[in-house]
């Protein structure tokens, strides 16, 4: 197939996205130049970035140098990687050597890491071209990207709406054709929910499958990096590149990356798909209708749908909002004005700490630091953090029971399609509820992904979430590919 046609879906602007798989193949065989791919993205950025604000930084010069180099390598007959010429946007909480990494926080503005995150190195080794660093909710704390210190990102499909969060910039960048694919991080749904709201495929791998080295930590026991792509096959290829053991991350599982592209054509014949009968309420009818349609599609493809129970699902939210802030309160303590980032001078050490952190962190970050500090404090630990850990185990137990009956579970990714700006900013709890379906996966350390499935209110995309047990990436991608085919 001609590389210029591609298989990507047309977005609302009529832009025909190219896919990772197509670009990599075409650039490697010399039928498409990496520079041409990049220039198409840069043109899209020039046209719409001021409106969308997907990026904190567009690294135009570095990207051009890199694309030229890749084309030269192809011309010279050198071996190029599996992602040759593929343009990728990185969430701005992943360290990039010599390139500003801010976490969308004033406290880190201007900080240039002296090293690359493992995922960045792995993508670069396979020939990826980095377009820039994308906007996020400050330190990945939020579900709409409205908590960025540098202003919100808009959903390219409807700029009056949020792209979701916290990886909103990474989702918007791919949805707007600013990059072929992107990386996000997912602590409680921060890849899957924006993928759903922007009509993309988004993967939260099993905890330990993708290295966290170089990812600025939010909730260390929950964080995982994963891809945003326009197709399931692209997501599979991206996973194969970024996953696999990393000796620099002690929580990285000692095994190679899962081979997923071979799974896509296997179908779901004979698979058992779980439907949660006691699912938390509050999802909008358009979303639930698409979920039903997804079950129908899988049934039609030969899967059986079985009922399962997840009584602890709703408690996941409460447990998460103790565990994640507790870890965050410790992870973010290093931003103290002593060694890097913002420092606000004051009369003595403690005043300097206070002034720096007061000026450097936004409200949501402060809220979570206080929550987490409180939850870990002497006298409160058992009642809050300790209890949250018990709920975490309960959720894992519920999942284990459910997975005796099924191979994967389908839920909505988000209770609603993309919502309007300001809808939930005044009510943190309503915002937290966005993640009710995504959070349990992180607490259990399992894998999950969101695939676009039909549209809902205002013609906006609906995402269906596929849940699987730890290391269930292979069956998860079989289901995802089937849902994509059913579109």
């Amino acid at each position, binding site marked *: 197939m001609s590389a210029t046609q591609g298989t990507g879906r047309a977005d609302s602007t009529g832009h025909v996205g190219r896919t990772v798989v197509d670009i990599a193949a075409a650039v490697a065989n010399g039928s498409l130049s990496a520079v041409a791919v990049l220039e198409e993205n840069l043109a899209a950025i020039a046209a719409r970035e001021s409106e969308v604000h997907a990026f904190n930084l567009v690294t135009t010069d570095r990207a051009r140098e890199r694309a030229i180099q890749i084309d030269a390598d192809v011309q010279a007959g050198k071996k190029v990687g599996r992602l040759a010429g593929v343009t990728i946007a990185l969430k701005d909480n992943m360290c990039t050597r010599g390139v500003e990494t801010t976490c969308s926080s004033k406290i880190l503005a201007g900080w240039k890491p002296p090293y690359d995150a493992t995922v960045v190195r792995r993508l670069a080794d396979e020939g990826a071209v980095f377009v820039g660093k994308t906007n996020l909710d400050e330190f990945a704390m939020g579900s709409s990207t409205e908590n960025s210190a540098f202003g919100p990102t808009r959903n390219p499909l409807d700029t009056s709406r949020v792209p979701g969060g916290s990886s909103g910039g990474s989702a918007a960048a791919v949805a707007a054709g600013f990059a072929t694919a992107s990386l996000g991080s997912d602590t409680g749904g921060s890849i899957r929910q924006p993928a759903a709201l922007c009509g993309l495929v988004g993967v939260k791998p099993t905890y330990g499958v993708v290295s*966290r080295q170089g990812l600025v930590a939010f909730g260390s026991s929950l964080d995982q990096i994963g891809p945003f792509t326009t197709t399931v096959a692209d997501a599979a290829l991206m996973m194969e590149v970024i996953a696999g053991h990393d000796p620099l991350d002690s929580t990285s599982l000692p095994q190679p990356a899962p081979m997923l592209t071979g799974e896509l054509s296997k179908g779901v014949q004979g698979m058992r798909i779980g439907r949660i009968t006691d699912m938390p309420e509050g999802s909008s009818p358009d979303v639930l209708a698409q979920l039903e349609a997804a079950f129908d599609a899988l049934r039609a493809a030969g899967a059986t749908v079985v009922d399962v129970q997840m009584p602890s699902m709703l408690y996941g939210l409460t447990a998460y909002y103790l565990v994640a802030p507790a870890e965050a309160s410790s992870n973010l303590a290093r931003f103290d004005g002593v060694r890097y980032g913002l420092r606000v001078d004051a009369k003595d050490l403690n005043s300097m700490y206070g002034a720096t952190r007061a000026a450097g962190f936004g409200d949501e970050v402060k809220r979570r630091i206080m929550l987490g500090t409180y939850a870990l404090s002497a006298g409160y630990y058992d009642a809050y953090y300790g209890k949250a850990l018990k709920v975490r185990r309960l959720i894992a137990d519920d999942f284990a029971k459910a997975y005796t009956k099924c191979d994967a579970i389908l839920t909505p990714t988000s209770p609603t399609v993309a919502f309007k700006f300001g809808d939930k900013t005044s009510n943190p709890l309503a915002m937290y509820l966005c993640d009710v379906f995504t959070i349990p996966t992180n607490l259990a350390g399992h894998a999950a992904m969101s695939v676009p499935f039909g549209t809902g209110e205002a013609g906006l995309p609906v995402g269906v979430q596929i849940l699987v047990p730890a290391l269930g990436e292979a069956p998860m991608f079989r289901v995802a590919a089937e849902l994509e085919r059913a579109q």
Partner: protein
Amino acid sequence: MTTSSVNLSSIVATAEQLIDGWELVVGLEVHVELATKTKLFSASANRFGDEPNTHIDPVTLGLPGALPVLNRHAVELAMRLGLALNCRVQPCTFHRKNYFYPDLPKAYQISQYDQPLNIDGWLMLPGDVRVGVERAHLEEDTGKSTHAGGAEGRIQGSDYSLIDFNRAGVPLVEIVSRPDIRTSDQAKQYVSELRGILLAVGASDAKMEEGSMRCDVNVSVHKPGTPFGTRCEIKNVNSIRSVGRAIDYEARRQIDLINSGGVVKQQTLHWDDSAGRTNVLRTKEDADDYRYFLEPDLVPLAPDAAWIERVRAALPPLPAARRAALATLTGAGKESEAVAVIVERGQDEYISAVTKVGGDAARALIYVQQAFAEEPATPRVPAGDIAALSLMEKNAKLTSTQAKTLLAELVANGGGDVLAMAKAKGFEAMATGALESIVDQAIAADPQAWAKYKAGEQKAIGALVGAVMKLSAGKADGKAVTALLQAKASS
């Protein structure tokens, strides 16, 4: 970590150990830097004394995104120490201890909390005093702050502060004793014995003056048979001598305070060595809440039985056992100074080598103690040379004075042919007959001294011995001369 307090202890001070009727209760928390090549969680060098901030990296500096990776050698050294302290090595976890300070880069220290690597050991002091070791756990060191200007080198009131992160992330083991120590001497012996064990197993260079071994001392006083008193923790105790002084000072302070109607408050104190007193750093009310929680960036550590046994099997003989062996070999007391000193220097194996090639162990002990203080554990002088020297002296071929001269020469030259050296110097011990005639000459030459000596004036013997040595051109054995004079005087 603080020593868990037990209300009543089975260990009771003897009457002479009591201070005005008060029993002293001491527990020690000793931090030692492990002798690894690299840091506990990163590949930066673990080296003391280099230019500031030259052994740093993203992990050491706590840069965003950097993750710790546990140093296997540090675990092995910590296990070695634990096993040497008769601890149980168990599956363990790491926790974060959260507090803000500029030399703590991540604003938390990775340490071990409720599941330390080594637990329930003990250490034996001279006189068979057994001190329990509650735990010996792994943790990372902080950077080093230097506060310029201001009064006592403290951050309060200083003009500016400098931080050296070379030390940040250096592997430490914190050894927490049980409150089983009842005198300041025992505390000093404990630190000294612990230091000997650390050196023996190669876990640390244990240099208190360089800070690679640091003591915090918990002190309380109470009347025997009553619950323990409130304890104070003394920090900045940087030598074994200071351990004793700080405890003596603090015990006196607490006793005087109670006797004058006061109450001891739980405090952290700072030992001011030059002033010889403790000062309050903070009281319990404003103690930090460290918000310990499981370190999510590390996985549990569970050394398997095979690894533990390998480490145990490779343990070298420990100081106590070595002292006993040396005492048996040489016939010296196992708590004698010579035995202690030589084991501390690690030269006991050398003496054993001297003995193996036929040398006289008792004399070798004296030679080595006297002349090898500046020598390494394996002295440069071949063991055979010392063996030859000891035999010549033993067989009265040399006087002790002559032996001493040759010993000094051996040390200076790193060995030598003792027989040839003795010949070159014209050394040969005098036969008893020849010696007696010289002694008679000396008496005849100085009848006054002889009369005084005979009358009981002991120091008069000096002149006579000196005269004999002169007449014999140094070949007479001083001891033999003295014995001869004594025999003549009492006959």
